[in-house]
């Protein structure tokens, strides 16, 4: 390539890399003195455990939300103190006598038997165990990364749900609806007030006979919906009950005393599946999934809560900061920066100005990877994806070093630099290709089968490996060609030495 063409290519490449670096890493004040332009790295979704301020308003710090479910008849010692202090005189004494404190919980002695600081009420213990299991099953089915469920002083359940910018407010509906306990019923009527139970047909039957399960998905327009599947028996019964529909009717899905879904229908039910969406207030992905999980868990539940009226409730929601600390992400960025500097020092020391070739190649790889992390909705920056980018970076650096070493070896045999580069790439092409294709295949398969952190790690590794392969085999050679054309002392540019000092390339 001629010098002029090379100069144009180099200027263009430099401008593109500089512009992308600017977009990806630089934060600027907007001019009004208040707002600012955030770089792309700020907009990448982050794992809730990694704390750092980001998001549109800069108000998100990672972390998540915690709620504690108390079974009926149980309150926290703090709530007990507050309630007691609100009362006076005999009322206060009566209230104090009514509750028994065990650990951090207070038990209503009118509902639960507590003897010698121990709960001995067998019915309560059985009800609580079943309700707790129901809560665990529901949250487990949500497949939320980093979710945490703990038993509090044996008779309360604490749930931590990590937040992300998209799900910042999804927790309220999740905490509320997952706390619904009791019998699952489907009611039908002309309106909500006149609706009567149609499923299960008899109190002795289980709802599982009529409702097969539920799932959530999005349609072609992106609208989220809940699909409720009925068994043939359920469909037949619903069809017969809704056959007399006039202009419209209401189908209500209830758990205990709480309405999960209230659905207006204008014709008799004739299919096994009902698709529920809400055009006036569309479901978020999480809300649709939560409703589906709730109905599915009830339909498939084989162990009902012994007392159908047993309930649990949460009194407050606590927002907590990121588990790894407020500056965890900043430390990761610093660690990445140190690795980058060490890598560049190695390349500049060993290969001289050829280090610039690697720097351009690596920056191109890194910028494309960052833009993909931002652009792909399900990818977030976590410890796993960070490790994946590190491994792909190592793969790229090792591939580049392998090429440089092979070119150096060729050069030592007496060839010109141009011939050495050609032969060096020819000899290493398949080695690099094989390594990248194998890692990418392994990663994408793990991504396809695995879930949660491993899946995210694998996807990022697969994607970054593809970029690494393209950069090592294509872009790296291109940058080498355009940069080397400016110097007459090509061997010195690459820091290559051989016994014959003559250099006439």
């Amino acid at each position, binding site marked *: 390539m001629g010098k002029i063409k090379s100069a144009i290519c180099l200027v263009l490449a430099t401008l593109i890399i500089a512009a992308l670096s600017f977009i990806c890493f630089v934060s600027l004040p907007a001019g009004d003195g208040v707002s600012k332009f955030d770089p792309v790295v700020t907009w990448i979704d982050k794992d809730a455990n990694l704390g750092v301020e980001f998001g549109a308003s800069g108000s998100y710090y990672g972390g998540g939300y915690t709620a504690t479910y108390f079974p009926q008849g149980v309150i926290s010692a703090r709530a007990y103190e507050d309630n007691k202090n609100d009362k006076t005189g005999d009322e206060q004494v009566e209230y104090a006598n009514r509750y028994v404190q065990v650990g951090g919980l207070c038990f209503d002695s009118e509902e639960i038997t507590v003897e010698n600081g121990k709960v001995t009420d067998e019915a309560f213990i059985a009800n609580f165990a079943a309700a707790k299991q129901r809560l665990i099953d529901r949250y487990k089915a949500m*497949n939320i990364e980093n979710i945490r469920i703990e038993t509090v002083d044996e008779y309360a359940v604490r749930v931590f749900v990590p937040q992300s910018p998209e799900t910042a407010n999804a927790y309220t509906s999740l905490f509320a609806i997952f706390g619904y306990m009791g019998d699952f019923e489907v009611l039908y009527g002309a309106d909500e007030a006149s609706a009567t139970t149609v499923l299960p047909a008899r109190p002795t039957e289980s709802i599982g006979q009529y409702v097969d399960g539920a799932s959530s998905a999005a349609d072609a327009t992106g609208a989220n919906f809940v699909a409720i599947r009925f068994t043939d028996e359920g469909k037949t019964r619903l069809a017969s009950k809704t056959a007399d529909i006039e202009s419209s009717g209401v189908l209500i899905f209830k758990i205990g005393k709480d309405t999960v879904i209230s659905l207006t229908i204008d014709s008799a039910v004739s299919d096994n599946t009902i698709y529920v969406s809400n055009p006036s207030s569309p479901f978020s992905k999480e809300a649709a999934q939560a409703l589906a999980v709730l109905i599915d868990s009830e339909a498939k539940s084989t162990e009902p809560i012994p007392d159908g009226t047993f309930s649990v409730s949460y009194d407050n929601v606590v927002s907590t900061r990121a588990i790894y*600390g407020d500056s965890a992400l900043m*430390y990761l960025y610093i660690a990445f920066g140190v690795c980058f500097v060490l890598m560049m020092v190695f390349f500049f020391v060993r290969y001289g100005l050829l280090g610039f070739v690697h720097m351009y190649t690596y920056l191109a790889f890194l910028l494309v990877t960052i833009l993909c992390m931002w652009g792909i909705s399900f990818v977030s920056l976590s410890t796993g994806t960070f490790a994946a980018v590190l491994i792909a970076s190592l793969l790229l650096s090792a591939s580049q070093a392998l090429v440089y070493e092979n070119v150096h070896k060729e050069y030592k045999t007496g060839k010109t630099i141009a011939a050495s580069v050609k032969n060096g790439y020819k000899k290493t092409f398949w080695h690099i290709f*094989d*390594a990248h294709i194998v*890692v990418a295949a392994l990663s994408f398969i793990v991504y396809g089968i695995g*879930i949660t952190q*491993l899946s995210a790690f694998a996807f990022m590794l697969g994607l970054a490996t593809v970029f690494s392969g393209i950069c090592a085999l294509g872009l790296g050679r291109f940058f080498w060609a355009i940069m080397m054309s400016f110097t007459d002392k090509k061997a010195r540019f690459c820091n290559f030495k051989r016994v014959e000092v003559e250099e006439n390339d």
Partner: protein
Amino acid sequence: MTKRPLKLLPVWLAISAVIIVAGIILMSLLGFNTAPERAKSYSFEVRYDVSVEIDPQKVSALEGICEQQFEAHNVSAAARQDGNDVTYNMTVITYVFSGDTSADALKLAKKGIDDAIKANAGLSEALISVDYYELSNVGGFAYDATWRGALGLTVGAIVALVYIGIRFGVGNAVTGLVLCAHDVAFTLSFLAIARIPTYTFAPLLFAAIAAVFSVVFWLIHCAQLRDAKKDAALRNLPSADAVSYAWENSWKKILIIAAAGIAMFAVAGGLAAAGVRLALLPAMISVAVAAYSSVLLGPALHIHIKGAFDKFFAKHKRYSGKKKAENRAAPEASEN
């Protein structure tokens, strides 16, 4: 001539077998050291009603009282988490104590804090509440992720090694598969034996990193073997010599990449926050195990596997040749 490390297959096999067997026993008896997940802990929660009074100095005074009382009762928090009660608008400071902390000491600390708040004229007792709870982590959420991850890794490794089989021969794929399985098992065993604290999800991540490095390192070895096959002077080397030649040309490369990988995870883990460190530093083990198996165990084992495959193919070749000769001879005989 076969290099010395390649003659020590029984030694490498013994080391790996001891570690893996011990690891499997420990994994089945004790599992991994998931102390960071805190199976049992105490949560000491201090709430300050900021909807009534917002005064950062009073929050600091409250923190001071808590820390003083913890010190006085010889208990120290494993973690502190700041939060906000979004329902009642309260500042919540949560001190998390490990499960082996004395419940009596915490009870006394709570009493000490309550008394100190009462005695402090600047703090309004009505706006502050101090509670502590015993928490047991329900866990069990990693089950689906574990079996699906393990399945994914198995299928992924098999597909990757089918590719190696097509490109470099079945013998290389078989050794690669053995090494990949070995590296995953060795890494997990080492984590279990050394009782390295880790998150529930992390062992599978380290196993995946071991599998990736294992495949890449083995590919380096395979590439050298193929280069030897292309060279007319080396083409007919006996399997031991061919493996030895490939080993001589690959071990430095493998060790340099492994050293770079270990240094990378050491820097990243060393500079990261404490929680992140637990998920990054042990990845060094994965890289080291993959390097060990690719430099020592793999080539030593491959001498035998390659020998067996070479013998099989040579036999198969002779058989085909004999068959072809017979086929050629048959029409000639009938013509005569």
